């Protein structure tokens, strides 16, 4: 009799442990797509800051080709595993908190990119 009760107890403990394990598993699985979608972390850019300062034009040129041709399938995965939709809106999602972000450097360097001939510049927004 004793033996049977211990068995049942052991089974219950095992089930509880499994439930707890699965529950945490589900939680982490829920959390990862949100992290993947690349909406949140605005402290880190897709590449290191120094690289972006010198090579953002190449990155943007690559993104614009992929975004135009692949549309919703155009994704970029950073080496540390974050996923970004290739879209100018993704860039501006972080960088439009400073409306002079593009312009201060371009004005200083007297560069006139034609992005804003069509895309809506953050400076045009109210």
């Amino acid at each position: 009799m004793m033996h049977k009760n211990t068995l049942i107890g052991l089974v219950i403990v095992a089930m509880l442990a499994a439930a707890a394990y699965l529950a945490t598993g589900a939680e982490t699985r829920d959390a990862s797509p949100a992290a993947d979608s690349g909406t949140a972390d605005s402290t880190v850019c897709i590449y290191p800051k120094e690289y972006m300062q010198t090579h953002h034009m190449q990155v943007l040129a690559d993104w614009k080709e992929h975004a135009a041709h692949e549309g919703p399938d155009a994704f970029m995965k950073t080496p540390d595993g974050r996923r970004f939709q290739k879209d100018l809106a993704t860039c501006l999602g972080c960088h439009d908190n400073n409306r002079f972000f593009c312009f201060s450097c371009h004005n200083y360097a007297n560069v006139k990119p034609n992005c804003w001939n069509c895309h809506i510049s953050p400076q045009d927004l109210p």
Partner: protein
Amino acid sequence: MRKAGLGLIAGLGAASGILSNPLFERVSASAWASSPKQPGRRWGMVIDTRRCPEGCTTCLDACRRSHNVPTFSDPRRQVEWIHKEDGRALLGTACATKQAIPALCNHCAEPSCVRACPTDSIFRRKDGIVAIDYHRCIGCRSCMLACPYGEVSFNWSDPRPAIKEPTPEYPTREQGVVEKCSFCSDRLKKGLEPSCSSQCPEGAMTFGDLNDPKSAVSRLLGSNETMRRKPELGTEPSVFYII
């Protein structure tokens, strides 16, 4: 005698050619189901012209608003992604109605504009949308000549001042660039329907995946006889009309 015989044969050949190539096509459900298909998704639209009220411009206005389409007063410089034209001009004499019905880019399976574009700025996407990469367009207007439906417009002057209700949600175009309907690929990316079909008050426009037998467009194609614009050209449009 020989000549006459040859002439007779040629005449018969021409007649049979005309008869086997009618100027209009009724897309019956079984014919559509058995036609060869490319794998994957193919966005398409079915327009029920019986439910499209005369004089209503809700879809045209919705399109103009959501994509910053400029309004030029000069009819020769008009830029339109979707417009209304009378049924007979659109679908040929087989179409009995003279009522104005909406016409937009057909997102053909065999698009002639794509073949004509020298810079590959018009291309057909995997999901069947014929899209323009405005960055690459050099404004040569070959696509306008090639499109048998006249659905590509050219920006003869800067479109920005001519946009009546600008929206920050979508970019504009610039002078010297062609533009046309994109089947609202920007809205599809967000999981929304195209602005014309989603705002039609009568529900006359149905949008969906033509390759999915369970989609609303496939069901409509199955239960109705539909027509397409200029099917004899073999461009295989993705926009169908119920007359």
